C-alpha cells in the first residue's frame, strides 16, 4: 500500500484543462483551443503512464461520511481499464482535432471531452463503490453535452434519452448499494466479496435480488437487454469521435461496474448457481443474438455499428456471467479488443460522414476506391470483430468459449458457445458486405469515376493505430494473457 497524491494527477489534470477551456474567455482562436486541448490530452496520457509504471496505489480524497471515504486504489483490473481508456480517449481526441472543424461549439466539445477523460480515469481508479458511483453519475452528466452536441431537436431528445436511461440504471445501482451497506463491513472493492455472513443471517434471497438490481443497473450503460435502446438512439446523433468513445469506452464503464459488483462486492461464490446467474446469462445471450439481428437489419451505418456494440458488449457480460476464470480472461481480452475495434469502426464512419456526407450503408459502394487506406483499416477491424484467427477478436472469443464449456453451468455451458458462433456469423453478415461493396462496387461504377478523398492525417493516424493494435493483440496475446489471468484471479 502506497498512499500517494500522484494518483490524482490523471484525474485532476484533464478536469482542470477542460474547465479552463470552458471558462477562460481568452481561448478564442482555434489554434489556442487546440493547443490547450492537445496539451491536456497528452499530459493526462503521460500522467496515466507514470501512474501505471509507478508504485503508488492508494489515495484518500475526503470522507463523505465517517464510514464512507472517497478514495482511489489501483489494482489489476483498474490498471487494465485505465490503460485502455487513456489510449483510446487520447486517439479519439487527436481525431477530433480534424473532425470537429466542421462542427460548431468546438470549445464546449473539447471542454467536456477533457472533463469526461478525467472522470473515466477516476472510475478506473475508484477504490470503493461509493467513489465509483459518484464518478459514474458525473460521467453520465458530463457526457450528455457530447451526445447532444449538434443541438438539433433529435440530438437533444437523444441526449435526454441517454440521460434518463443512465439515471434509471444508476438509481438501480444506488438502490443496491443501500442494501449492501447493511450487509457488509466495508464497501471497498475486495476480491471475493465484502459480505459479512453474520449480518446476512438467512437473508440471501433478498441479497440476491440486490445483486440482480445492481447488475441490471450497470447493464444499462453496457447496453444489456432490456434497457439497451438508448445506444441506438444516442450514437447516430453524437459527433463521430464522441460516438466512438461512447461505444468504445463509456459503455465499458458499465462493464467495469458489473465486474466490481460481481467479483469485488458480492463475490463469485455467492452468485454461483443462483437464479441471478441463470437469468443474467440468459439476458446476455439474448442480447448477443438480438443485437446482431438488429444490426443485420439496420441500414444506417452508425446505427448498425451501435447495435453491433450492444451485441459485442454482451459477449463480455456473458464471459463474466459464467463466473469462470478462463471466461473472465476472455471477457477482459474482449474489453480491450472491442474498445480498439469499435472505436476504429466508428471513427471510419465519422470520416465517411465528414468527407462524403454519406450515412446509409447502400451509399457506400465504391468507397474503398475513394478512401483506400481508411477502408483497409475498416476491413481489418471487421475481421477482428468477427474473430478471424490472427486478430485479437479470435483470441478473446476462443477464451470465452473455452471458459463457458469448462464451467459447469447447466445448458448454457454449451448453448453459450453456440450462440456466440451464430452471432459471429451474423457479424460477418452485417460487416463484410460493406467491405465487399466498398472495394468491388459492381459493373455499373466506372473504375475511373472515383476521386481520392482520403481523410486528413489527423483522422487517419488514430484509425491506423487502433487497427494495428487490434490486429497485433492476436499476435501478442501470449504476452497479455498472463497479466489478465492474474487480474482475473
Amino acid at each position, binding site marked *: 500500500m502506497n498512499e500517494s497524491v500522484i494518483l490524482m494527477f490523471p484525474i485532476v489534470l484533464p478536469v482542470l484543462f477542460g474547465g479552463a477551456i470552458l471558462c477562460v474567455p481568452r481561448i478564442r482562436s482555434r489554434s489556442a483551443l487546440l493547443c490547450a486541448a492537445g496539451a491536456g490530452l497528452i499530459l493526462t496520457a503521460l500522467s496515466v503512464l507514470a501512474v501505471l509504471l509507478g508504485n503508488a496505489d492508494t489515495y484518500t480524497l475526503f*470522507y463523505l*461520511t465517517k464510514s464512507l471515504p472517497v478514495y482511489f486504489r489501483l489494482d489489476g483490473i483498474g490498471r487494465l481499464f485505465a490503460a485502455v481508456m487513456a489510449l483510446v480517449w487520447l486517439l479519439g481526441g487527436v481525431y477530433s482535432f480534424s473532425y470537429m472543424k466542421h462542427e460548431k461549439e468546438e470549445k464546449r466539445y473539447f471542454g467536456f471531452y477533457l472533463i469526461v477523460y478525467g472522470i473515466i480515469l477516476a472510475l478506473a481508479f475508484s477504490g470503493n463503490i461509493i467513489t465509483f*458511483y*459518484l464518478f459514474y453519475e*458525473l460521467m453520465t452528466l458530463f457526457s450528455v453535452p457530447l451526445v447532444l452536441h449538434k443541438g438539433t431537436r433529435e440530438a*437533444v431528445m437523444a441526449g435526454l434519452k441517454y440521460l*434518463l436511461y443512465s*439515471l434509471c440504471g444508476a438509481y438501480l445501482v444506488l438502490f443496491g448499494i*443501500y*442494501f449492501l451497506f447493511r450487509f457488509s463491513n466495508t464497501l471497498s472493492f475486495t476480491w471475493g466479496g465484502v459480505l459479512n455472513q453474520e449480518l446476512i443471517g438467512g437473508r440471501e434471497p433478498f441479497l440476491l435480488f440486490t445483486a440482480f438490481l445492481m447488475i441490471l443497473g450497470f447493464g444499462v450503460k453496457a447496453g444489456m437487454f432490456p434497457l439497451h435502446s438508448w445506444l441506438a438512439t444516442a450514437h447516430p446523433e453524437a459527433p463521430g469521435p464522441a460516438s466512438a468513445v461512447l461505444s468504445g469506452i463509456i459503455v465499458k464503464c458499465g462493464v467495469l461496474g458489473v465486474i466490481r459488483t460481481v467479483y469485488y462486492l458480492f463475490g463469485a461464490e455467492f452468485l454461483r448457481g443462483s437464479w441471478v446467474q441463470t437469468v443474467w446469462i440468459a439476458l446476455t445471450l439474448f442480447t448477443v443474438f438480438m443485437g446482431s439481428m438488429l444490426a443485420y437489419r439496420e441500414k444506417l451505418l452508425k446505427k448498425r455499428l451501435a447495435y453491433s456494440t450492444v451485441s459485442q458488449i454482451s459477449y463480455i457480460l456473458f464471459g463474466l456471467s459464467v463466473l469462470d476464470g478462463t471466461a473472465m480472461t476472455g471477457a477482459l481480452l474482449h474489453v480491450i479488443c472491442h474498445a480498439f475495434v469499435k472505436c476504429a469502426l466508428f471513427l471510419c464512419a465519422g470520416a465517411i460522414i465528414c468527407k462524403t456526407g454519406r450515412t446509409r450503408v447502400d451509399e457506400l459502394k465504391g468507397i474503398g476506391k475513394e478512401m483506400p487506406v481508411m477502408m483497409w483499416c475498416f476491413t481489418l477491424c471487421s475481421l477482428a470483430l468477427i474473430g478471424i484467427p490472427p486478430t485479437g477478436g479470435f483470441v478473446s472469443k476462443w477464451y470465452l468459449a473455452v471458459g463457458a464449456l469448462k464451467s459447469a453451468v447447466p445448458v448454457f455451458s454449451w448453448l453459450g458457445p453456440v450462440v456466440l458462433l451464430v452471432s459471429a456469423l451474423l457479424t460477418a453478415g452485417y460487416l463484410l458486405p460493406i467491405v465487399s461493396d466498398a472495394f468491388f462496387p459492381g459493373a455499373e461504377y466506372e473504375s475511373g469515376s472515383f476521386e481520392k478523398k482520403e481523410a486528413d492525417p489527423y483522422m487517419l493516424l488514430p484509425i491506423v493505430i487502433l487497427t494495428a493494435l487490434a490486429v497485433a493483440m492476436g499476435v501478442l496475446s501470449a504476452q497479455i494473457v498472463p497479466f489478465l489471468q492474474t487480474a482475473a484471479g
Partner: protein
Amino acid sequence: MDFVCNIPFISILLSLFSGTICSVLPGRAAKWVNTAVIVSVGIMSAILLVYVNGTQESFVYMMGHFPAPWGNEIRAGVLEAGMALFFCMIMLLCMWGGRKKLDEEVEESKHNLYYILVNLILSSLLALIYTNDLFTAYVFVEINTIAACGLIMIRQIGRTLEAAVRYMIMSLVGSGLLLIGICMLYDLTGHLLMSNIQEAVAQILEEGTYTVPLVITMALMVTGLAIKSALFPFHAWLPDAYGYSTISSAAILSSLVSKGYIFLLIKIIYRVFGFSVFHDSHIINVLFVFGLAAMIFGSLSAIKESDIRRMIAFSSVAQIGYIYMGIGLGTKVGMIASIYHIIGHAAGKALLFIAVIGLTDASGFSRSFFDLDGAAYRNKIAGIGFTVGALSMVGVPMFAGFVSKLLFAQAAVNNVGKLMPTMIVLAVSTILNAIYFMKTVIRIYTPAENTEFAVIPLKREKLYGVAVVLFVILNITLGMLSQPVVDMIRSGLEMFA
C-alpha cells in the same frame, strides 16, 4: 450563566424591534437595517453554536421573573443554534438574490414595509426555533403566517391577492387545529412549558387514564402543522403563492417559512410528547403515507406544468413529502435525514428560485418553459445556479440532495416494515424529478435559433451573482462535507430528549 446565553433572546428581540424601526425609515435605510440585522443575528447564532458545541449541553433561559412551571422560557441547544445560523444565511442570500426584482416589482413607497415583514419573519422563525413554551409558539406561528401573507401580497396583482387569501385560509385552518390542540394539552397536563408537559404526559401514560384524548391532541397538533407546511393534499395554495410573488418572497417562503413549522413539529414530537410516544401512535403511519403520496403527486404535477416557477413550486410539494416520509419512518436516522433534508432542500430550492428569475429575465420575462431556449447562455450565472440546484434536487452525488437521499435510504433499511414502499417511492420520485429538472437544464442549454432576447451581462447584476455563487458553494459544501452537519443534528437531537 454566561453572557452568550442571552443570544437567543437578543436575536429574537433585535429582529422584532428592527421591524418596528423600519416602519419609520425610508426604503434604502430599511434595506441596510435589514441586512445588518440578518448578518448580526447570523454571527450571534454562530457564536452560540460554538459555545453550545463546547459545553455539549443545552441551556434554558428564563424570561421575566417567574421560574419554570409558570414563567416563559427559551431553550437553546446545538440544533437550535445551527438552525438559526442556517436560516440567517439562507435569508440573507435570498434577499440579495431578489433585490433587483424587488425594486422592479414593488412600489418604491412600500419597500420599507417589505423589510418590516422580512424582519418579522426572521424574528418569528427564531422564536419558533428557540421557544420552550407552546403558547408562545402558537403566537409566533400566527405572526409568521401574517408576515408570510404580507410577503405574498406585496406584489399587487390579482394572482398574488388570491394566493394570499387562499394561503391565509389554509393557514388559519391549520393554526386553529394547532390552537385547540394546545388548549386540550393544557387541559390534560396543566402546563404550557414543553419540559413540564413531557413529564405530565409520561405520568398520564403510566396511569393509563387519558390515552385517547392524548392521541387526539397529538393528531390535532400534527395535522395543524402539516397543513401549515403544505403537506399533500393541503398544498392547493402553494403554486400560486410561490409562483407569482416577488422572487425573494418565494424563496423565503419555500425554504424557510414552511421549514419553520416542520422544525416546530419535530420539536413537539421530541420535547412535548416524547419520541417513543409518538412512535407508538398510528399518526406516524399516516404521516408516512401522506409523505409518500406527496413525493409522487408533487412530482407528477411538476412534470405537467409548463410555467417554470409553478413547476419549481410543485417540486417543493414533493420535497416536503420527503421530509414527512423521513419523520414517518420513525427511526432516529430517519429524523436526522429529515432535518438534513430541511437544510439541503432550503439551500437547493432557494437557489432554484433565485436562478430561475435570472433565466426568465433573460427570456423576455416569459415564464413559459418553451421560451427558455438558450437562457443559460444569456444569463450565465443563473444557468450555472439552476443546474446546480437541479442536480441537488435530483440527488446527484457531490450535492446536498444526494446526502439526504442516502440518509433516507439508510433510515429505511433500519425499518423493515416500511422498507419496500420507501425504496420504491424514492426510486420513482427520483426518476420523476430527473425528468422535469433535466428537461429544463437541457432546454436552457440548447442554443436558441434567431433569438431576440438580449444577453444579461454579469457586471450589471453583481449582488445577484454573488448570491448565486454563495448558494452554489453552500450546496456543494453540504454535499461534500456532510459529516459535521449530520453530527451536529445527531447531538442536537440527543439534547432534545
